[in-house]
């Protein structure tokens, strides 16, 4: 099951994702995220602490949303990935586009 909740902190929208993000849940992720950044601030931090699993379809959606956000003068950061998901993040090279932080605190300070 995939879930998405959001709240504001220090001028950022913290988007808490939980569950599993694969090609079956990507459409739901995209529509919910779009609603957030269309009506609220465009600086987004994806909080992954409750995210169990992200497939390459999920990562692709995140990458493409980041590009759209930046084109709209926004930004996207990622925080709190579990060990395996962090390994994918590094192995694939997502770190060249999106900054990673160990905590939401660190992400909001930078």
């Amino acid at each position, binding site marked *: 099951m995939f879930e998405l909740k959001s709240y504001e902190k220090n001028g950022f929208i913290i988007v808490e994702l939980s569950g599993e993000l*694969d090609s079956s849940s990507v459409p739901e992720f995209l529509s919910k995220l779009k609603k957030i950044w269309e009506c609220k601030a465009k600086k987004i931090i994806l909080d992954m602490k409750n995210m169990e699993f992200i497939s390459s379809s999920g*990562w692709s959606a995140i990458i493409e949303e*980041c590009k759209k956000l930046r084109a709209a003068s926004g930004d996207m950061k990622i925080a709190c990935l579990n060990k395996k998901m962090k390994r994918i993040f590094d192995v694939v090279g997502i770190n*060249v586009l999106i900054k990673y932080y160990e905590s939401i605190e660190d992400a909001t300070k930078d």
Partner: protein
Amino acid sequence: MKKDTNFNLIISASKKNLKKVRELITKEMKVNGFSTNKIISAIITITEHLENIIKYGYKNSKGKIYIKLDLNYPVAKIIVSDKGKKFNILKAKTEDLKERIKNGIGGKMGIKIIFNFCDDLEYKRIKGYNNNIFIFNEKK
């Protein structure tokens, strides 16, 4: 009582079935003593492979995918067969995706992830079927 070590599952090539496969792998590998670390490696690998079969092998049209689990601790073999487009994963090129990602373009990550998370991989084409054997070994 002797534990079951062989399991078979046939699914239609649909994104909706990815979770069902992950649940089977998680449950049966756990029962057979595999670590959470290996189980997660297996579900990451198999999800990537299934997403590729659905998208490229069957091109989002109808088809069946056959999954067999052969669990003999410390080695788990997961055999995935499909009748989609012929594709030898062992001959696939893994490219450096950094430039692509820097430009905000996704895709092409699946095979790189598979090679990084499974310990060994065999491919056989038999009677029109792609047969991929993914091996996860606790000793590796």
